[in-house]
């Protein structure tokens, strides 16, 4: 008995320590989130009652990056590359198979209870589909007020209605809409409601999973502007996951390119867009339709053959080699590491950034416009 309570005390003490660390502020420009070799493998099973594992979908397979305080890190990639799974792992909506996510020195993949709840206050998410991310049976007031129900210490009960109305105002919605239901709003307005919910607890990090891809073109710009404004006002750090390369470039300070569960290339927006060294990045950039008919004649396009291989059965070595025009024997044998490629090491060139390719070379594929 005595042993047990002692044990409990120890747990409580370490939990309190964790909570204290989580609530401490972080300087601007310091890493606030450090992701190290993060993996998520979904087991493939056979059998109904007695399941046995027959393989695994390697949705995320060893991803590392830092998110700095106050910056926007864009993550781009095609469907199935694992970018949304990364978001879920960072939100602790999925348990990581391996790897660490350090938030202010605490590995959040191992936290639970009070400490995890404290982390959740500080890391919030904006979802892709504004039609499924809001509970249709709750009023806007209940939806935006729910964070306060879960974390009552943030706002005293009598204050909540005012807080919710403030939040509606901040995201550009009429505060009188508090009693309406989500279906009474258009897509763009719903996304604003989702953003207001994300802001309610004053988080430090917001993870945005394709926040504008479900919206009409003319509304996308409004939401992007709102997000940039809020970042300045509330000093937020964004992890901005999207497939629209031009929007990612507009909003991001740094960009990571993912392919088949791995980070192919990461660097500042200029390094990635103007000086890509990974062939996949080059192909991706060149394939983006450019809203300029003049460019279509003299644009060099790299059209990849085939589709993205299945993450349940990725190619050996470099996972991009099956579609790569540079692939050689080495690519099938050796997994390229995410590092500054040898030719650029120690050189003061924008091409000297992290790229996971054996034969990295610079190639500017985007016509400057």
């Amino acid at each position, binding site marked *: 008995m005595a042993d047990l309570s002692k044990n409990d005390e120890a747990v409580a003490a370490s939990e309190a320590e964790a909570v204290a660390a989580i609530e401490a502020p972080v300087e601007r420009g310091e890493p606030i989130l450090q992701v190290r070799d993060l993996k998520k493998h979904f087991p493939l099973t056979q059998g109904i009652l007695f399941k046995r594992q027959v393989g695994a979908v390697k949705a995320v397979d060893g991803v590392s990056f830092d998110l700095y305080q106050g910056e926007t890190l864009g993550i781009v990639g095609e469907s199935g590359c694992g970018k949304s799974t990364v978001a879920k792992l960072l939100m602790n*909506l999925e348990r990581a198979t391996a790897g660490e996510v350090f938030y202010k020195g605490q590995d959040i993949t191992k936290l639970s209870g009070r400490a995890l709840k404290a982390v959740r206050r500080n890391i919030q998410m904006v979802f892709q589909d504004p039609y*499924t991310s809001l*509970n249709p049976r*709750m*009023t806007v007031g209940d939806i935006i007020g729910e*964070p306060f129900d879960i974390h009552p210490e943030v706002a005293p009960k009598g204050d909540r209605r005012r807080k919710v109305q403030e939040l509606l105002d901040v995201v550009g919605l009429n505060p009188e809409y508090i*009693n309406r239901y989500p279906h*009474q709003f258009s897509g763009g307005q719903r996304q604003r409601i989702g953003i207001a919910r994300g802001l309610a607890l004053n988080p430090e990090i917001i993870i945005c999973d394709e926040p504008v891809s479900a919206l009409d073109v003319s509304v996308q710009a409004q939401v992007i502007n709102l997000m940039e404004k809020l970042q300045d006002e509330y000093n937020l750090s964004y992890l901005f996951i999207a497939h629209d390369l031009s929007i990612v470039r507009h909003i991001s300070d740094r960009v990571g390119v993912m392919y088949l569960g791995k980070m192919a290339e990461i660097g500042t927006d200029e390094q990635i867009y103007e000086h890509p060294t990974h062939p996949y990045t080059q192909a991706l950039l060149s394939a983006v339709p450019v809203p300029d008919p003049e460019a279509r004649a003299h644009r060099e396009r790299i059209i990849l053959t085939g589709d993205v291989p299945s993450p349940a059965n990725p190619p050996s070595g470099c996972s991009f080699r099956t579609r790569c025009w540079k692939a050689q024997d080495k690519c099938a044998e050796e997994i390229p590491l995410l590092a500054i490629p040898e030719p650029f090491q120690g050189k003061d060139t924008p091409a000297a950034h992290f790229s996971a390719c054996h034969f990295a070379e610079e190639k500017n594929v985007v016509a400057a416009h």
Partner: protein
Amino acid sequence: MSDTTQKTDTAVEDPVGPIAPAPAPDKQDKTRSLAQDAFRDLVRNPMFIVSAVLIFGIVSIAAFPGLFTSVDPLACDLKHSMEGPSGSAWFGYNFQGCDVYSQTIHGTRNSVIVGVLTTIFSLVIGGLVGVLGGFFGKWTDALLSFVTNVFFGLPLLLAAIVILNNFRDDKGMRNAGVMAVVLTLTVVGWMSMARVMRGAVMQVKQADYVAAARSLGASTSRMMFRHVLPNSITPLIVVATISLGAVIGAEATLSFLGIGIRPPAISWGVMISEAQQRISSGLHPLLFPSGMLTITVLAFIMLGDAVRDAFDPKLR
């Protein structure tokens, strides 16, 4: 917004508009809950009013049959056998010469009790099993699904005979009371509700708003009762209102086989099964209890419909 307009790209999606001034009428300066909204909607729904009045009437008959007839349902006289409706016996007499009207009135209680209680018990058990299995998944679901399937494997008659055979009166005769019938029908009837609920819960669980609640740090009970349950209960309510009628019918089957409620106890089921055997000699002893049964089932289905609509904000 109806489904059709959504599908056809007309996107009648925005009755609000940011520039439009907030509508002044019925603006309460208080955050309303869904339940309050639903209630306001219900009392304005004619379908709800009609069904509520009907159910109130039926429940009154069940509670106080003496208010509606002074004739003893068991005072039968064979000389009236199969006499048609008349001033003294509005629904006529049955084969045994009993007053059909009086029997129908006095049979209401047993039928309604069997129907309502069985449905409620099945709803609770099935709903609970479905929610737990659907929400937690993995081994919980495997276990609960297994149990559900085992019960599904039980044939109604076999289960009924096994259970009801154990109920005997003080003389040792087989005689099941109302509660025994409720128990039996619940045992063989809750599984479809569990299946429906499980499916709905599994679907709703995937929704982003549940993930959103989880990422806010919401507790399991909060996710279950605030997010998953309200969005998955609709199909269950529909199944329940429909099964109410089926339950009353099943009670009749058991009576017909002689293992359910038995004469001299009266229920619509008993009356229908008796009248069925002598359908060639006269239709009226069958018609009136069947009519009451139909009205009752209809009333509950209408109630279920109205309640479902009221709790669906999309239809508001």
